[in-house]
């Protein structure tokens, strides 16, 4: 049953599990060899269970799929490292694995930020298209404004409204261009 969905959730759960294993192995080793042996079996079973529960949020996202495979592999390697060693060695290894997991998370976040920047550029394309369309309209509206007279009070009202619309469009155009250029 997959119930740990997405890279963030998988990383978080594995980190929590490694902390839990470290604590359980420590307390079991203090309680004697029988408790320690039982803990070794219980904790390794939890790691098999973990790899069964992970799943990418988007199965079509090759990067996410690959990163979750890396997390599963880490859990599998940790499981093998628990057997046949003393509690202190196991605890040391857990700490090493947590730091390795943190590094993986950092690298994935950096990559995600980079992807997001690229995606933002593509997302802004329709905004640019809209601005272009509006710019063409602005020219037509400007021509219309020129045709109106200041002497006629009704025409003057329309002219003033056109001016405020033009100011708003110019502000929108500037804001959109700034956004585009900053991405």
């Amino acid at each position, binding site marked *: 049953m997959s119930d740990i969905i997405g890279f963030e959730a998988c990383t978080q759960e594995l980190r929590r599990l490694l902390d839990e294993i470290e604590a359980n192995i420590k307390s079991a080793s203090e309680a004697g060899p029988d408790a320690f*042996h039982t803990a070794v*079996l219980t904790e390794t079973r939890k790691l098999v269970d973990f790899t069964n529960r992970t799943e990418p949020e988007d199965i*079509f996202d090759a990067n996410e799929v690959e990163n979750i495979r890396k997390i599963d592999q880490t859990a599998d390697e940790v*499981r093998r490292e628990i*057997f046949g060693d003393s509690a202190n060695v196991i605890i040391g290894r857990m700490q090493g694995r947590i730091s390795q997991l943190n590094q993986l998370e950092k690298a994935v976040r950096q990559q995600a930020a980079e992807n997001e920047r690229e995606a933002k550029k593509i997302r802004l394309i329709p905004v640019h298209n809209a601005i272009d369309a509006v710019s063409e309209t602005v020219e037509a509206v400007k021509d219309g404004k020129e045709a109106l007279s200041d002497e006629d009070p009704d025409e003057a009202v329309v002219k003033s409204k056109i001016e405020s619309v033009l100011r708003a469009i110019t502000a929108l155009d500037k804001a959109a261009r700034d956004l585009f250029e900053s991405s």
Partner: protein
Amino acid sequence: MMKRYRMGAVNASCRGFVILLLVGSLLGGCRTLPDTSGYTAATIQVKQAVAATGDVVKEELLSASKAQATTADDETVKNFEAAWAATMRSLDAMVVYAQSIEQIVDAGNKGAESGKAVADSVKNLVDAVKVDALTGGTAKVFELSAETVAFVYGEYSKHVAAKSLEEALDKFGPSIAKITALVQAQIADAGRLFDEQIEAQVQFIEMPAQTPEDADKRYGNWIKRHRELDKTAEQATQLLVQGIQNNRPNDIAKAKAMISDLETGRKMVAPRMAEYEAKKHAIRKREKAGRSIIGSAENAVAAWGIAHQQLVKAVNERKPVSVESLTAAVIEIRTLIQRWREL
């Protein structure tokens, strides 16, 4: 007179106490050895469950081969069969070892004779689990096997003259731990072959179609086109951004035309990419389930090693042998295999 009588009574009660202590200690020493048949039965179950794990890997190999959906050839199946046959020999030897310990314990502690019998059982076990160059395992397993054999032989010469059953079982504890680690490594090695097989299936669907018949099985050409579209999208975006920044209408128009073509291209490629991703997802799902089964098989063998330590303790303390952890490990493998079959 009265005083002498009292002294006599005290002496008599002291003697009684000493006799009681002697009888008590003798009775304690003769407490019956525990029944280890549960350990033997659980070992047989472990063997059967782990054997089923091998069947899973083999099924994966054969079904992909039959469906012609893998780049792996028959040699892969042969390699797996050779390596797995060695693992099965190890599991058979674990059962024989458990049976021999059961017989030795049932026969009662016969001092050095029992000690020698335990030593011989351990030696037979290591002789059966050792991996030679012909078994198809990796160099790592071969190396581990050589180390394990050397260690156990060394231990054998040191402890063959153990004076009691308890001493022998205790002294050979590290040997059994080493042997357990070797069998675990053999199973992990089967996992490596399973991984290779999965990768061969992924490679197969990612290769370009060779004939019109396998156009719906291989997606290499579509993946290539998809990547080309991605690259074009990147170039178009770059051109558009630069066009806007430098106010170059021609670049902007060119970029927009490219983007429009890209949309058409993506619509054509998308259904085939979705098929490819769905097939890859199904392979990855089987990979995940298979790896869990192999992992739980490794755990079961480790549980066997730990249960052996508990057996040694139970013999020493004349307490019942617990095999709960072994039973749990067997149940876990069976559950995972069931899930695999439902995929």
